[in-house]
């Protein structure tokens, strides 16, 4: 759903630009606590994987292009604030180097995919985590659920923006129905991929998964003072 240049009218583009700037600005401030020596590389890798999943692009009847979003994945792996930064960086790179999404529509794209998609995915994930038992094994399932909801949510937001600032007169109900239909399907794919990736990381490096931290137990170390015992 990368919005190209000139797709929405100027006021809408400016407005979403302001929203995006505010969102990213807040994330920058909040992420300072999350982002250090160790998490900066992780944020970069998540950006790389989100980038890769978004490359799986396919045309969607009446929408623009449909593809996986990766927002929920990013939020679960590195936390929502850093996740917003990672996905925003991906969108910036796509606009600059791939011409996927216009540079003047960057604010719109960040608002849709990095703010709406990711935040909805994260809220669903965290909400479920609150009410369900804290088990590491559940993390991939919850992540998949968040991912599933995040895609249609972003699609709805897109339709809303179009209603306000679309440059072509298209019947809104047609657009909404098409967008929601297709993106529910894409949501299933998103859920499967997110679940698989989070699952494989949780299996061997649960410490890397931000969303799994509340469920991790602390380990006690064993000390062998008697050298002979080790032989």
């Amino acid at each position: 759903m990368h919005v190209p240049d000139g797709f929405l009218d100027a006021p809408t583009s400016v407005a979403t630009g302001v929203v995006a700037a505010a969102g990213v600005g807040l994330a920058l401030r909040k992420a300072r606590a999350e982002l250090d020596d160790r998490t900066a590389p992780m944020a970069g890798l998540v950006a790389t994987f989100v980038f890769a999943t978004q490359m799986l692009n396919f045309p969607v009847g009446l929408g623009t292009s449909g593809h996986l979003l990766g927002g929920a994945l990013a939020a679960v792996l590195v936390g929502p604030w850093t996740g917003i930064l990672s996905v925003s960086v991906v969108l910036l790179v796509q606009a600059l180097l791939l011409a996927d999404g216009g540079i003047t529509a960057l604010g719109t794209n960040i608002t849709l995919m990095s703010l709406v998609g990711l935040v909805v995915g994260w809220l669903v994930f965290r909400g479920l985590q609150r009410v369900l038992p804290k088990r590491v094994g559940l993390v991939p399932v919850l992540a998949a659920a968040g991912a599933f909801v995040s895609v249609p949510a972003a699609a709805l937001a897109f339709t809303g923006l179009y209603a306000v600032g679309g440059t072509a007169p298209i019947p809104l109900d047609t657009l909404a129905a098409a967008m929601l239909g297709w993106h529910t399907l894409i949501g299933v794919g998103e859920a499967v991929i997110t679940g698989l990736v989070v699952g494989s990381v949780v299996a061997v490096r649960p410490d890397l998964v931000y969303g799994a931290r509340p469920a991790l137990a602390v380990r006690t170390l064993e000390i062998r003072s008697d050298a002979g015992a080790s032989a």
Partner: protein
Amino acid sequence: MGAGHGHKLHYHGHSVVHRAPAHLKVASLLVFMLVVVATSRTWFPVFGVYLALLVAVIAASKVPPLYIVKRMVVEVPFVVFALLMPFVATGPRVDVLGLSLAEDGLLAAWGLLAKGTLGVVASLTLAATTEPRDLLAGLERLRVPHQLVQILGFMIRYLDVVTEEMRRMRVARESRGFSARSVRHWPVVARSAGALFIRSYERGERVHLAMLSRGYTGSLTPGATTPGATNATPTTAAPSSTTPGNHA
């Protein structure tokens, strides 16, 4: 491993456009597109001027036009959308070749195609003439927040790491009698994709820690190095790459 030279979208060259500072290129792209988007879609000749401008830049960059044209496939889904618009749009209709099309829809489709295409071509020109490392430095000069540049730096580096790890895994698979010829083989690829994520991450992490071990502070102060990019290294006048081997 680590920072390779260029990326698939980069067309190696030494033209004026290639050599122009990245931050100027990014800024010009932004300004150009703002102007394009602000132009009313009914001022048809103006779009011709924009296109001529772009074509001139591409010519100066010596990037083969076909190279850019091929990458324009990104635009396809969106072209489909634009082409459908005259059919589904509401409002007064006109007859074109026996088809009943919405007048507003036609105009909107033109506007979308013209502006969108200009945007795509302009971005691809930037991509073809700018190394990611230069882009990184350029964004920094444009005061893009430090954390974003840092994530971008790691992202560019991880693209290489992931590609390299993927290559290794492919060679390993094929050496043991496997090739992904049909959908039946996808589960194997999917299973190794999970391992790919952690492998790439851990490789990248170890490299990052190696950088820290050699005094890298992660700060992007002028003259210091950014991940995957360096501007601190001297350009010594030592003899250029000589390869051992006295055979012709």
